[in-house]
């Protein structure tokens, strides 16, 4: 493999955005028939590198060569025509069109009059999906299918093009374990066909399972290129964040007794979203919710916050049943909820850090009682410092911040309300390792101070590290509640998720 010549080389790539040098003299190469992981924290320049490669952005300096010839794509279409296809993190398909059309649009088979041959489109679409072991109605509108299926359709679209280079930008972040394996099977087959695959993922296990080689970026600069099997995980993380990572231990202290129930869900359920469940969260306790994507984790969080209406059961706060019909009602009981969808359900991108930070507090006070400017300044500067939010400029628009810093602002939005129960839905997803560790530490501190936390994460290690108790979900049903003692490991947790409630 090392003997083969690169299909793609990028040399000395630099890209300047207003105020930021996103890429600074980066080299990158892709060999045919390899899976090449592009690694780095958020803001390291991974997305920018992909965007300059596919022609979304121009490059300021450097050269890109495909098959030895210099190229400069004017856009994704030109890149695709030259054999570079991309599947992005967020599914970029048109959900209003049919599955078949999504695979073929822009290159539908046509007769010589330019008329689209619909039968052929449908037949070939079904054929391609069969290669991915996906048996669905290709004439149905894409919106009828789950996000995971949509992701596979996006990949089907990408592999149908006679691609030399396939870029997968965090394709697995919304897939469950089975779907990830399905994707990996496809990736291996494509690799055997000689396609070079550029793979981006935040899941280290996946990187080690599938990739042959990796390139690491940090702060827009190249750290180096390594063979995956020669680079231990600890070293990889160290190279990504540029410092030795502290030993990962369980962050909560010795076993404590929690006997003051704060929020109790009694046979609470919502038709089609989550089966009735009973769960008690005590003061000062961190309860982890573990389960696969779509197992009902987010649904539980939304019910407890009043974002959705329950169809059965009741919620009791401090022992008294309370109807939580709106987020406002939940907030009046000091319940806070940080959504997993940072962009669509958290940020107000056009507003500043300050405005985003005080928004919930202002909403709780009502607009007729404005928060005095001096109090705003005090709160903002306290939390910007406490959470290490960068840049530390409260009047910066929040959309200019990196993902991790945006997440910290959203956390701060809820922390200034001094909630008694903080619901965190995937607070560490898609953010860099450094910010992740800071947020985890913060959760441990908060619960130490008496706040109850409901912590949702797809990463079982993280759930185990933080929680006192873990509630396990499977197929929209709460199947087990496990105390987090020394006997509980990621393996036993995984078995519970897989086996449906009978810990081994």
């Amino acid at each position, binding site marked *: 493999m090392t003997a083969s010549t690169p299909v793609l080389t990028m040399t000395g790539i630099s890209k300047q955005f207003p105020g930021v040098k996103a890429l600074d003299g980066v080299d990158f190469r892709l060999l045919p028939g390899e899976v090449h992981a592009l690694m780095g924290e958020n803001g390291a320049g991974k997305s920018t590198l992909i965007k300059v490669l596919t022609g979304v952005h121009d490059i300021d300096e450097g050269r890109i060569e495909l098959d030895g010839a210099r190229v400069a794509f004017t856009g994704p279409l030109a890149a695709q*025509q030259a054999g570079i296809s991309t599947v992005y993190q967020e599914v*970029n*398909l*048109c959900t*209003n*069109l049919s599955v078949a059309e999504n695979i073929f649009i*822009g290159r539908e088979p046509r007769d010589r009059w330019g008329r*689209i041959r619909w039968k052929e489109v449908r037949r070939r679409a079904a054929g391609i999906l069969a290669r991915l072991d996906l048996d669905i109605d290709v004439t149905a509108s894409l*919106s009828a299918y789950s996000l995971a299926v949509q992701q596979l359709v996006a990949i089907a679209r990408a592999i149908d093009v006679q691609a030399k280079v396939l870029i997968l930008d965090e394709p697995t972040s919304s897939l469950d374990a089975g779907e990830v394996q399905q994707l990996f099977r496809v990736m291996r087959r494509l690799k055997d066909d000689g396609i070079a695959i550029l793979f981006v993922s935040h899941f280290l296990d996946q990187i080690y399972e599938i990739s042959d080689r990796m390139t690491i970026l940090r702060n827009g600069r190249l750290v180096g290129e390594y063979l995956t099997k020669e680079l231990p995980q600890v070293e990889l993380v160290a190279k990504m964040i540029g410092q030795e990572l502290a030993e990962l231990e369980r962050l909560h202290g010795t076993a404590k007794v929690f006997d003051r129930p704060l929020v109790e869900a009694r046979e609470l359920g919502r038709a089609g979203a989550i089966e009735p469940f009973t769960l008690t969260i005590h003061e000062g306790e961190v309860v982890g919710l573990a389960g696969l994507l779509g197992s009902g984790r987010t649904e539980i969080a939304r019910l407890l916050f009043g974002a959705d209406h329950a169809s059965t059961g009741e919620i009791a706060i401090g022992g008294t049943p309370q109807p939580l019909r709106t987020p406002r009602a939940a907030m009046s009981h000091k319940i806070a909820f940080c959504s997993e969808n940072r962009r669509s359900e958290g940020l107000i991108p056009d507003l500043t850090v300050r405005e985003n930070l005080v928004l919930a507090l202002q909403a709780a006070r009502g607009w007729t009682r404005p928060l005095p400017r001096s109090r705003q300044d005090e709160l903002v500067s306290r939390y910007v410092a406490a959470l290490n939010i960068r840049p530390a400029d409260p009047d910066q628009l929040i959309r200019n911040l990196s993902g991790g810093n945006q997440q910290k602002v959203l956390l701060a939005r809820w922390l200034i309300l001094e909630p008694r129960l903080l619901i965190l839905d995937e607070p560490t997803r898609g953010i860099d390792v450094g910010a992740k560790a800071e947020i985890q530490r913060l959760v441990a501190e908060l619960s130490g101070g008496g706040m109850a936390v409901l912590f949702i994460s797809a990463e079982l290690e993280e759930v185990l590290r933080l929680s006192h108790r873990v509630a396990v979900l499977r197929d929209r049903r709460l199947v087990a509640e496990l105390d987090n003692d020394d006997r509980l490991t990621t393996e036993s947790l995984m078995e519970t998720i897989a086996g449906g409630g009978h810990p081994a």
Partner: protein
Amino acid sequence: MLVTAGLFAAMFVAGGVRYEGFATGQIVLNVFIDNGFLLVVAVGLTFVILTGGIDLSVGAVVALSTMVSASLLQAGWPWWAVIALVLAMGVVLGGGMGAIIHFFGIQPFIVTLAGMFLARGLCYTIGTDSIPITDPAFTAFAQTRIDLFADLWISPSVLIAVAVVLVAAYVLHYTRFGRAVYATGGSEQSALLMGLPVARTKITVYTVSGLCSALGGVLLAFYMLSGYGLHAVGMELDAIAAVVIGGTLLTGGSGYLLGTVLGVLVLGLIQTVISFEGTLSSWWTKIFIGALLLVFILLQRLMSRRGA
């Protein structure tokens, strides 16, 4: 769209029961004859709305087309040159607006609003009075009756309008451009990343709309035999209403041309019913259209909720 068809049938039957001489084939054909230009304009607008855009300039471009036609004919130009020039003008206006919308990222609402001002303004600079059309070719076109069977007849404009509908339906469903229109309306970002020529698609739909408006203007000139800056005032509203009643989502990405045709027919039938009623004043038309819009939008809303 089925609802629209049902409504049309119901109105037609109710009209037939209530008024003598209503339930004849000629009534339906008359709706076509009286609204051929609106149909053509609405077809063009359907393209724009499917991409999630809007074109407020259509009525003004129609008026400008009648005005240019009338004044050039008065100046002695041959009819074919006039029509060719007017259509070219529509293409240029539409394409220009599309280009500004796309390249400078300004909202379609504002750009086509400016286009509307521009077109109406140009009308008034040509002249503030109505200019009659006496060109023999135009008058012949206006007065020709094409007899169908059993005393039924249509005007040549109807043929043109039907041809436009057929061509447009073919383009939308059987060409890559047509599918790109739907994709752009579904998600512009995705369409771009899927490598579709979004820029070309967006500019083209406004060009199509400009062309259709100019053609609609020519048809209106046949119908009215005059050019006037106050022709087709508020027509953009009728056209938008027809598209919406026809089931196209204003957010783009979903809808059919046949729906637009039915939408135009329903609007036309309302006018017919009101003229048959006799005692109802003309402003009831507006109130009815408003009420209909409300009903249809609520229906769309209901169905999309059930779908999700």
